[in-house]
């Protein structure tokens, strides 16, 4: 990914404290317009806080966020209804689906083509306006309510759409509709998408960048590959994470079983040839995606290992030598002693 000269968000020395406790600390970060940013991390790691700050729902305790180059805060007329957040639990007001979706337009005082926008937004999330527009708010399933809540944001044609676990508690169809609607917004209006999710398909198939949050600190995926928990103690005095296909991620024992471990990307060996142990942990996987980091010339390789997708940053010559392409079966090998724990203090 390139970082163009004018980022849509620029975070400077951001810090958020609740009741004196620091829950988020981001020294510096930029987000490019039109990017799709994934936020991953355990519950309580600060994802929702970061989303609320970027959505200008709350003000930071310290530091500032620049929107398109100038500092912005809650209730700024400049960002209202251009940056919109879809919270984790959809909250619909006691009114019809149509009125819920039209609410943001009403707040903005936009009357022209309101009905058209509402209908298009409903259609975008896969809810037929003719069937759903007149329904009362309480006559919806959980997935439908979440889609109505998303439609209310899409009706605003936002420049930034922040989504907090948009598919965490909905059925597969709704999850797919939500994903497609969000991507369509990016395609139509160049909307920047920032998504907090535990959903791997979101994070590694849709997002351009994934940031890992742990204990209020943001770790951009770059030269490090994150090995997410939860961990259980294994027989070899190391910690294991059993994967769905029976393989185990193995790391040295740490202090917090929910913490993510990481490994410097150059210590992670991706190869098409089968490799043997020699003290290393070897996992079988499949190449999902290759992406070029234009600025450095490196390539981001996303490999499916069990239900995880591990992202490694490889030097282009390594990749050329291996001749990797999506769909290839590969081995992922690393010396467990190269794995380190995030120091969150």
């Amino acid at each position, binding site marked *: 990914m390139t970082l163009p000269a004018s980022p849509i968000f620029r975070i400077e020395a951001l810090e958020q404290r609740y009741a004196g406790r620091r829950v988020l600390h981001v020294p510096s970060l930029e987000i490019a317009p039109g990017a799709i940013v994934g936020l991953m991390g355990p519950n309580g790691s600060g994802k929702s806080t970061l989303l*609320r700050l970027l*959505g*200008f*729902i709350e003000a930071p305790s310290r530091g500032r966020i620049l929107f398109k180059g100038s500092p912005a805060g*809650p*209730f700024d*007329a400049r960002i*209202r*209804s*251009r940056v*919109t*957040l*879809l*919270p984790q*639990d959809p*909250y619909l*007001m*006691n009114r019809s689906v149509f009125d819920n979706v039209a*609410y*943001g337009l009403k*707040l*903005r005082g936009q009357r022209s083509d309101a009905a058209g926008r509402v209908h298009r937004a409903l259609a975008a999330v896969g809810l037929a306006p003719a069937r759903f527009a007149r329904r009362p708010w309480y006559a919806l399933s959980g997935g439908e309510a979440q889609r109505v*809540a998303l439609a*209310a*944001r899409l009706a*605003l044609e936002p420049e930034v759409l922040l989504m907090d676990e948009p598919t965490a508690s909905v059925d597969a169809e709704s999850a797919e509709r939500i994903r497609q609607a969000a991507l369509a917004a990016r395609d139509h209006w160049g909307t920047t998408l920032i998504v907090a999710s535990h959903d791997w398909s979101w994070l590694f198939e849709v997002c351009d960048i994934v940031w890992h949050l742990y204990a209020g600190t943001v770790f951009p995926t770059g030269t490090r590959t994150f090995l997410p928990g939860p961990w259980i103690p294994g027989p070899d005095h190391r910690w294991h994470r059993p994967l769905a296909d029976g393989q185990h991620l193995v790391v040295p024992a740490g202090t917090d079983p929910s913490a993510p471990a990481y490994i410097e990307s150059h210590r992670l060996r991706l190869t098409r040839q089968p490799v043997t142990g020699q003290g290393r942990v070897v996992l079988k996987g499949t190449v999902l995606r290759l992406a070029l980091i234009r600025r450095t010339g490196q390539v981001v390789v996303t490999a499916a290992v069990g239900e995880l997708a591990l992202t490694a940053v490889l030097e282009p010559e390594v990749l050329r030598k291996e001749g990797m392409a999506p769909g290839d079966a590969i081995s992922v090998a690393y010396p467990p002693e190269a794995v380190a724990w995030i120091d969150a203090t």
Partner: protein
Amino acid sequence: MDYILEGILQAVALLASGNAETLSAVAATLKVSSVSMAASLVIGLPLGFWLGYHRFPGKRAVRTVVDTLLSLPTVLVGLIVYALISQRGPLGEMGLLFTLPGIALGQAILAIPVVVALTATAVESMDRQLSVTLRSLGADRRQLLLSTLWETRFGILAAAVTAYGRVMTEVGISMMVGGNIKWHTRTMTTAIALETNKGMFAMGVALGLVLLAIAFAVNISVSFLRRRAR
């Protein structure tokens, strides 16, 4: 027991014949309770909203005080208001003693804690997500406030009805501050107290039934409004 039956018959007769004394008491009750309700809503709603909406140190203590004031004895309010508006009191020059505005002042003091406490509870019990949702959809400060008020309208309506009930049925303030002056400050409740004092139990029951009928009409109106608003 007889006087209860007799009271029911008398209530019908009083209302049907348009008995001037009864109508005067009904009018006094409606006037004074409307004024006191308007005042307590104007003062109590913003306070209650503020109390329910914001988190601040000492909030629990303030809530406890307000909740305690919910059970303010009406005679105590009557006594305090009398002390305030008596000619010898600090507000004596306003000439409020033995007037309907004087009663309304006392009743407003009675009703404000009810409005504050119930409004605060309604706002507190409102989904925290509402505020996030409204702001994420682009509400400015004013829209946020108004929309939140609007979303809590049923809770606020309940607060108003409860306060109205308390105001309309109280007797201590009306008696002490109003003086139960015939044609002027005699309300339904002081009239009932007087008739009972005079041993006219049936008349007391009749007036009580009239009061109940008014309360019934108010509640019917409110639930009607509420149904229409769905």
